[in-house]
């Protein structure tokens, strides 16, 4: 008879499609008919084809059945299965309201499950949607300029610098590219500087010095007036194009501003135009554009300190531009002989090469890796949450088997139950989506306030249509998981459930459930590894040796408007007098100033060309050193003392007119001392920076002090020279005092204003605050990473506990009987714990592989620890294992105490 059986696959498919009361009868009829067909036609093939055709033609009528009017004679038509679910959504609104009432009553009575589901999904979806919105708005959306995706930042790399850092643009290179490039249709170069507006309310602003071409690169007309152009190069006067923001805040958007005069550091500048608001995305910090009235061509080759932005012709790619600029760079010396010497120097000594990148990439470079990492973490949390909700839902549906069977017996029928479950899932999904949208909206509104200095373009982040769609889509997936699992799980034989003989959980479903838990543990392990690495990085940063004491140390800035009549002697007298006055404030124990104080530093760079009277040959790699001017007492104020030689004093000051050659006294840090003067005592020796630089004598050596950001460390050669210089108008002051900031600031301001009422005192901060600021982004990331890891682990705990306690309950009879027969309690516990161990092992294997694979993503965000740090991985594995075993322990104890009487009574 076995030869008379229809195709197994077709029958299996049909069996799952025919989720209607007569399904079994139809299958029976078809089998009978199939057998008759084989007999009649004597062809299995023809009979098989007939059977498959039956399967195919069944689908439309099943769909029609599900969708057609639900009622005949006022009785609810029945739905079930996947087909029924589609029908149930469109049908019977009245029944659905009834169902919803029932479900809500149930939720109020037993709120844990719905609360867990809505919180897990709402938070998971909300966080994912928020990070997606940030990724989309900050990293992916083109700059808001016409063909903004064609803007490129023209920078250079130094192949000799192992960090890959290099320069931006040199005037000489810019001139050559501007004249030679066919792929760039417009180019602008600019440097920026902080100056003071000296008429009206004094304020410090950042200005940019652009070349002609700014307007072409922006690609938009000015709001009023005109852009700067080549004709501004032939006049002697200074002109200005205001940024839109500056125009609005300072002039209230007055259109008659064109032609009026603005004083910048007492220089008169005529306003010729106002840039459109979109131009801010070129360089957000620049408030006023002041073109230099001298073409770049007349300058020397210069250093690589200019910002340069170009506009690619449409259709040209970045790779093509890279090739073109590399070719131009290679021929620069030949094409422009006046630059040849400088070009050779950069090209050979530092192996400078052009390396253009998209302007958008350049703008978001600092945060790109962070944001991707956040998005990945959020997605992982969502997946963990989803798989957890799946597990919870599965467990609950198994637990509710009896409840469901009773309902079915009381007249609902299987299809009504499916409809009930669908309504429940819609309610939970709707609530989760609502919570997610609310959370996303709140986070996105709050984000620009918190992160405006941290994330470029963050003010553009908004709850747009894409994000909304994503939120609803993710919530939709969640609903699907919520519906699918319980309805697949609905026991076929409800009567058997009532009799108590049904053993819930087919092997397939149990494997599916185990798979979910393994995945969940794996993803939790990934996030714990991330969190651990962030924690280690954070710890490394906080324990960085700054090289000085931060207790009671303050810093503030004084900037002097540049005046023509200043000379070095005035500055000398001013600094010296001011230092004495500030030190005289009661509570101040030391005060000094430097061009560059720790953590607030823009170091100048120079190349050492002569050591001890010996000119370095071109072939020798000249040490690059960074330098900063100080006034005496600097090291005393920082609490650093010289290890060799002496500190500099006021008497070491170099003043013009003394001697033919500049002789400066410098204090080197250890790093510079050992690099410039290996094997000899540097004190009293000489060197020279740059061909035109003055001869410098080393007065003393101090320990390395961290100058730049916390994560950069004192790896550069450092040089600190002492020279009050008339060109020099900005100084960062450091004060050692036991006064609180709110007392110290007014006292200092009073003293400064007694000396010069036009000088503002800016940015007073204590070093604890500065260090916290320097590690602020990392603090934020650490909190987020640990939060994500904690959430994933907590969800894993709930998932494992839920699944195992269900399993123990399901096996109650077996465990009870084994108990009654005197089974060893330890063996019973072990039978549960072994399952945990298997899941943990599989989960960790997955998690560790995933974490290791994402190591590259972490490279730029960890500090002081490897991305594959074995210790962190080990700790993460132990944490996940402990949590899983902890979650499994209570169910295991229950297993060993299963009551034989209860098991038997249930029978």
């Amino acid at each position, binding site marked *: *008879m076995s030869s*008379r*059986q229809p195709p197994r696959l077709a029958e299996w498919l049909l069996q799952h499609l*025919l989720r*209607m*009361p*007569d399904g*079994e*009868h*139809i*299958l*029976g*009829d*078809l*089998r*009978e*008919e199939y*057998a008759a067909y084989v007999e009649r036609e004597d062809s299995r093939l023809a009979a098989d084809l007939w059977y498959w*055709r*039956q399967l*195919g*033609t*069944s689908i*439309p*009528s*099943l769909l*029609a*059945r599900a969708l057609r*009017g639900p009622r*005949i*004679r006022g*009785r609810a*038509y029945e739905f079930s299965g996947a087909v029924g679910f589609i029908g149930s959504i469109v049908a019977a609104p009245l029944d659905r309201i009834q169902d919803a009432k029932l479900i809500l009553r149930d939720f109020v009575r037993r709120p844990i499950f719905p609360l867990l589901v809505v919180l897990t999904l709402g938070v998971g979806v909300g966080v994912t949607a928020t990070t997606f919105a940030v990724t989309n708005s900050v990293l992916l959306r083109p700059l808001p300029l016409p063909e903004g995706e064609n803007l490129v930042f023209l920078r250079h790399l130094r192949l000799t610098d192992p960090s890959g850092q290099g320069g931006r643009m040199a005037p000489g290179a810019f001139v050559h590219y501007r004249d030679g490039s066919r792929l760039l249709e417009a180019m602008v170069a600019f440097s920026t500087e902080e100056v003071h507006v000296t008429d009206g309310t004094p304020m410090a602003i950042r200005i940019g010095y652009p070349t002609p071409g700014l307007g072409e690169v922006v690609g938009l007309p000015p709001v009023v007036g005109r852009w700067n152009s080549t004709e501004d190069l032939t006049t002697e006067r200074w002109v200005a194009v205001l940024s839109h923001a500056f125009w609005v805040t300072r002039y209230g958007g007055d259109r008659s501003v064109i032609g009026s005069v603005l004083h910048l550091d007492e220089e008169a500048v005529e306003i010729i135009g106002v840039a459109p608001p979109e131009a801010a995305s070129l360089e957000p910090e620049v408030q006023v554009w002041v073109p230099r009235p001298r073409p770049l061509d007349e300058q020397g080759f210069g250093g690589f300190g200019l910002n340069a932005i170009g506009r690619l012709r449409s259709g040209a790619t970045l790779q093509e531009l890279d090739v073109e600029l590399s070719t131009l760079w290679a021929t620069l010396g030949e094409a422009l002989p006046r630059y040849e010497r400088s070009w050779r120097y950069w090209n050979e000594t530092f192996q400078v090469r052009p390396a253009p990148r998209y302007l958008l990439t350049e703008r978001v470079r600092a945060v790109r890796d962070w944001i991707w990492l956040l998005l990945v973490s959020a997605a992982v949390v969502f997946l963990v949450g989803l798989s957890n909700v799946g597990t919870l839902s599965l467990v609950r549906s198994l637990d509710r088997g009896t409840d469901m069977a009773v309902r079915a017996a009381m007249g609902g029928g299987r299809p009504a139950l499916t409809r009930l479950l669908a309504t429940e899932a819609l309610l939970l999904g709707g609530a989760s989506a609502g919570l997610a949208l609310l959370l996303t909206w709140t986070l996105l509104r709050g984000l620009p306030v918190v992160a405006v200095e941290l994330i470029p373009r963050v003010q553009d982040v908004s709850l747009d249509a894409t994000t909304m769609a994503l939120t609803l889509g993710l919530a939709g997936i969640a609903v699907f998981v919520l519906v699918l699992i319980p309805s697949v799980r609905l026991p076929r034989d409800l009567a058997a459930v009532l009799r108590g003989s049904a053993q819930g959980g087919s092997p397939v479903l149990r494997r599916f459930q185990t798979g979910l838990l393994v995945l969940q543990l794996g993803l939790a392990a990934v996030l714990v590894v991330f969190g651990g690495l962030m924690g280690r990085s954070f710890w490394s940063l906080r324990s960085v040796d700054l090289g000085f004491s931060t207790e009671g140390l303050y810093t503030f800035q004084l900037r002097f408007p540049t005046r023509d009549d200043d000379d070095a002697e005035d500055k000398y007298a001013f600094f010296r007098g001011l230092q004495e006055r500030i030190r005289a404030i009661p509570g101040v124990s030391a005060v000094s100033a430097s061009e560059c104080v720790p953590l607030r530093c823009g170091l100048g760079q120079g190349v050492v060309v002569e050591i001890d009277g010996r000119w370095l040959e071109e072939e020798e790699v000249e040490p690059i050193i960074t330098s900063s001017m100080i006034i005496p007492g600097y090291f005393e104020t920082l609490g650093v003392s010289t290890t060799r030689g002496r500190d500099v004093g006021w008497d070491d000051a170099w003043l013009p007119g003394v001697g033919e050659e500049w002789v400066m006294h410098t204090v080197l840090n250890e790093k510079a001392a050992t690099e410039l003067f290996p094997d000899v005592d540097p004190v009293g020796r000489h060197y020279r920076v740059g061909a035109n630089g003055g001869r410098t004598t080393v007065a003393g050596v101090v320990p390395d002090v961290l100058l730049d950001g916390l994560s950069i460390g004192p790896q550069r050669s450092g040089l600190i020279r002492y020279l009050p210089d008339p060109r020099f108008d900005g100084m960062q002051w450091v004060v050692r005092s036991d006064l609180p900031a709110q007392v110290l600031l007014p006292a200092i301001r009073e003293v400064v204003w007694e000396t010069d009422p036009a000088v503002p005192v800016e940015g007073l901060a204590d070093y604890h605050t500065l260090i916290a600021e320097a590690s602020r982004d990392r603090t934020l990331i650490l909190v987020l990473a640990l939060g994500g890891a904690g959430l994933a682990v907590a969800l894993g705990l709930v998932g494992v506990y839920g699944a195992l306690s269900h399993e123990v309950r399901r096996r109650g009879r077996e465990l009870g009987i084994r108990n009654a027969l005197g089974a060893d309690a330890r063996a019973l516990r072990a039978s549960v714990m072994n399952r945990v161990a298997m899941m943990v092992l599989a989960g960790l294997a997955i998690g560790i592989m995933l974490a290791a694979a994402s190591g590259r993503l972490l490279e730029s965000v960890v500090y002081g620890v490897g991305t594959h740090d074995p210790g962190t991985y080990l700790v993460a594995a132990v944490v996940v294992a402990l949590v899983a075993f902890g979650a499994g322990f209570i169910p295991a104890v229950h297993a060993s105490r299963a009551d034989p009487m209860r098991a038997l009574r249930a029978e």
Partner: protein
Amino acid sequence: MVESPLSGFEELVLLALVRLGEGAYGVAVHQEIESRTGRSASVTATYVALERLEHAGLAVSWIGDATPVRGGRAKKHFRLTSQGALALREARAEVDRMWEGLEGHPDLAPQ
């Protein structure tokens, strides 16, 4: 009373029940319709129609024995109810009334 008029296919199913008498079940109804009208609906479609008719009270069913050739599945038999007979007669009467006086109408002449 029947709330919804019979669809054409449902009418065929009811007529097949009359023809088959006590021997009516899903596949038999399906074959009866197919052999007489040449319309080949699926067995499932037949059952869907039977399900509706049963809900509407136009047919009744009872479960027969399970047999090995059916894979151990029981057979469901159907029979016309008096309501069903009424519905069929009404349907016929409706059609007849519409046909009244149309014999020999030029539009209906065979081409």
